[in-house]
């Protein structure tokens, strides 16, 4: 694989396909990079707080490097296309919110209709492909002011993710992070085993 893959390609490879939601995330991530003058995260220099679990978050992960695994992606389940990106080094954060109705194109409705279908005819598959092309151009070329509102915000940065010791669950025998154990009369338990025993082992 080549180095320096462009952000869009990074996002598509990570997400697996092209869709309008992913492209909105691409625009948000690229805007954050410019606005905060940051490059892809290496080791938690950046933090993303996302208020949705939809496609756009994959672009945030792939382009900005704020990932679930690194612990610098915080998910608040508010169902809003809002991304707050913060730079630890610059002590700066920006909250980017998708404008209501910004991508309510005529083609969007038909795209969603086809997207909901389990099986597409040959004509419908071609139509969906063409709709993605149209929506792609609209989303990727529309002025940022039409797509988002944004504001610089103060964000209290949490400490970097900690690595804790692993203990063995007395019931299932599997390893479990120390801070997620339950101390019981049976011994140290993982949460699933603790719950299976009614939380009173």
């Amino acid at each position, binding site marked *: 694989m080549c180095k320096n893959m462009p952000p869009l390609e990074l996002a*598509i490879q990570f997400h697996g396909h092209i869709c309008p939601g992913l492209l909105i995330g691409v625009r948000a991530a690229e805007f954050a990079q410019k606005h905060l003058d940051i490059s892809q995260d290496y080791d938690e220099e950046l933090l993303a707080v996302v208020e949705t679990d939809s496609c756009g978050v994959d672009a945030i992960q792939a382009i900005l490097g704020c990932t679930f695994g690194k612990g610098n992606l915080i998910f608040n389940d508010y169902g809003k296309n809002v991304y707050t990106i913060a730079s630890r080094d610059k002590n700066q954060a920006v909250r980017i919110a998708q404008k209501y109705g910004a991508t309510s194109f005529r083609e969007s409705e038909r795209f969603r209709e086809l997207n909901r279908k389990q099986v597409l005819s040959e004509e419908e598959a*071609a139509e969906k492909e063409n709709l993605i092309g149209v929506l792609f151009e609209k989303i990727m070329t529309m002025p940022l002011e039409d797509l988002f509102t944004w504001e610089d915000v103060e964000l209290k940065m949490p400490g970097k993710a900690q690595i804790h010791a692993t203990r063995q669950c007395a019931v299932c025998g599997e390893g479990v992070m120390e801070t997620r154990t339950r101390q019981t009369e049976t011994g140290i338990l993982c949460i699933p085993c603790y719950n299976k025993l009614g939380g009173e082992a």
Partner: protein
Amino acid sequence: MCEANVYIDRGAGEELLMEKVDRIIPGEENNIFMESIFGERRVVKARIREMELVHHRIILEEVKEATGVRELEIWLEPDTDHGHFHEGEEVSLKLLKGYNMKADPTAGLQDIKAFVVSEGDKREVHLHEHDESKNIILGQETEGLIQVYVNEEDKLYTKLIVEIGHHHHHGLEPLGLPLEIVPSNYSHARMGENYEIQVLKDGEPLTGAEVRATYSGTQNRDYPHHLTTDSEGKTRLYLTARGNYLFTVKHDGITSTFTLMKSF
């Protein structure tokens, strides 16, 4: 009845298609094969409407495909998935024939000549038989730009620019084909970019020409993009698909294609 004259109705009344036909074989996809007592053979897309045996007349009705008559084109595809080859990597290209980047394995390739142009030098290259395609293997070329073109019977032309290493080159020189598509600025491009090409006819910009564009893996039966060249013979397309693109222009009986290797 020994033989019959075959007439075809293309929508504007009957017209004589072939005289003294003694053999007709309806085939698949509305193809009708016919042969005359003079040995003339022909295949048309039609259905048999009427057979007047007493008058030795067979009347066909032309079947028009929804997308029009599809004439085949040739094009080159690189054996790489990311738009360029690396230095030291074997450069291998496939020559395909079909329509809308969908290869037709039954389409024969005849009288093909392939050339490589690099830094002003042109040399003919050998085509290797490989399963259902013919391949051009250039070996391990050094860094830079190589233009490859193929010509079938001076009617079908195709061209591809091979990039070795990570470069973007400006102002590529035309090869001097009778009908040629030339990238205006870059040899290669990425999704989300406008890509401009120029069509040259005998080296001069061709104004008002229809350029069709498609991309590998499209689910469209016909070309998804139809463009028209401006007063400078130029036209442009916003790239929204991941695969390589194919631009096709047809003029004065010549069909010329250009494969754009997408880069990332």
